[in-house]
């Protein structure tokens, strides 16, 4: 379903073969297999835009491993980008931050071809209602669609079905509820918007490269501030719990927040907005086609935004009749 010039849906994912959360490749293959099967059975035209961000030099690429593990996945449904590790090194403003997740997602969002772009994660399964809404195709522009996340206990099976997915016994805890106005909570797992609007707001925040936690929530502030609506799509997505997940132990770095590998969770992600440069999503990175249809984004200084761009941090705009986008939280 991935060869349409403009598929209905682009699913943007990012990862690398670094063993994140345990057996990363198995979790990725399981989720992709399930989502691929569900979308295909509903005749949804889609592509997966996968961004392999700063892959370790001493390990095989995910693109090499995935299709060996899951040969049933249609290679043509994937647009696969490998990003030079130098970008992570140069762009990070926090030495403890090993993965600039949302910059990676921006690489995918910028290059996505779908009418709607869903940014999600590698271990997220699309729920029944979500699939129905996508299949119906009645999605509106300028609406950020959100889905609550249901956390599953770690799975052992390689193939997943609805019986297991929707069994309350599979849940690792109480289901999350989306609360207006942000409809936040695990936004990184499901944020869908029409491509044009995603380009209008220039993706996720690239100015604040000090943390990756809260960048998804900050995107919702930007969306509200830009006059977009945030809506619950009507059903959940499912996420497989794994070791190292922030969700499992959000207070692991309490009192030493600066040491957290995801950055300081207390930053004002709910209170400021941003203006990315027009080159967002490594727009000027030279692209080099490689074997297997993979595109390598080579390092180039002209693709790097300024180290510090203070004018890119702005106060969010309140809209008449809309919720106030900013709310002060004392940080220190």
């Amino acid at each position, binding site marked *: 379903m991935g060869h349409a010039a403009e598929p209905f849906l682009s699913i943007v994912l990012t990862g690398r073969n670094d063993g994140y959360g345990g057996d990363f490749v198995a979790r990725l293959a399981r989720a992709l297999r399930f989502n691929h099967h569900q979308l295909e059975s509903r005749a949804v035209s889609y592509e997966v835009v996968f961004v392999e961000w700063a892959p370790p030099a001493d390990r095989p690429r995910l693109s090499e491993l995935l299709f060996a593990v899951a040969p049933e996945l249609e290679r043509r449904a994937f647009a696969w980008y490998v990003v030079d590790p130098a970008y992570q090194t140069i762009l990070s403003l*926090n030495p403890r931050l090993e993965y600039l997740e949302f910059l990676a997602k921006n690489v995918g969002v910028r290059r996505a071809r779908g009418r709607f772009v869903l940014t999600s994660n590698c271990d997220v399964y699309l729920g029944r209602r979500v699939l129905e809404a996508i299949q119906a195709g009645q999605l509106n522009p300028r609406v950020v669609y959100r889905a609550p996340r249901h956390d599953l206990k770690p799975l052992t099976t390689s193939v997943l079905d609805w019986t297991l997915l929707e069994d309350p016994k599979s849940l690792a805890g109480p289901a999350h509820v989306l609360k207006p106005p942000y409809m936040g909570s695990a936004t990184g797992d499901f944020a869908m918007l029409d491509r044009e609007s995603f380009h209008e707001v220039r993706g996720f925040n690239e100015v604040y490269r000090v943390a990756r936690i809260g960048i998804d929530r900050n995107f919702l502030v930007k969306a509200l501030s830009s006059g977009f609506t945030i809506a619950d799509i009507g059903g959940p997505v499912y996420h497989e719990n794994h070791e190292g997940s922030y969700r499992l132990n959000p207070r692991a770095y309490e009192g030493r927040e600066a040491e957290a590998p995801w950055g300081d969770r207390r930053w004002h992600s709910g209170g400021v907005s941003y203006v990315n440069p027009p080159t967002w999503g490594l727009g000027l990175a030279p692209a080099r086609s490689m074997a297997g249809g993979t595109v390598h984004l080579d390092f180039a200084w002209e693709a790097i935004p300024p180290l510090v761009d203070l004018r890119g941090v702005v106060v969010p705009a309140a809209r008449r009749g809309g919720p106030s986008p900013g709310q002060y939280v004392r940080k220190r």
Partner: protein
Amino acid sequence: MKRLINRLLAVFGLVSARRYQAMTEQAERLKVTANEWKTRASEVATRVRELEADVKRSARLAQKSKLSVDKMRQRRQDIDKLRSRLADAERELIVAREHLMAIEVKLDILEGAANVLEIRTRSAVSQHHNQTSAPA
């Protein structure tokens, strides 16, 4: 005959003893009644004086109340003004907090940039030092 004698006595200004007795008793009764009325009149006069004092007191109170009402009206206007100023201050506070957040976020960025630049500088200097101090 009795009537004739009474008329005759009346010519000389005299009355019969019984008549005299009756008149005297009537006069006594009238005197008592008059005293009662005097007492009542005195009481009424006292009551009138009391009521007059009450009226004066009430008038004073009314005057005081009017002043209080005026004061309250003024105070209410002051409170309305204060409320309006409070709403303005709250709005300004929200804006100030938003700017404070933006400043703190900018400081985070500056701090982060300073940290990574320090690391890069140390690394570059150390590398340079190693190269220059390496034996030929």
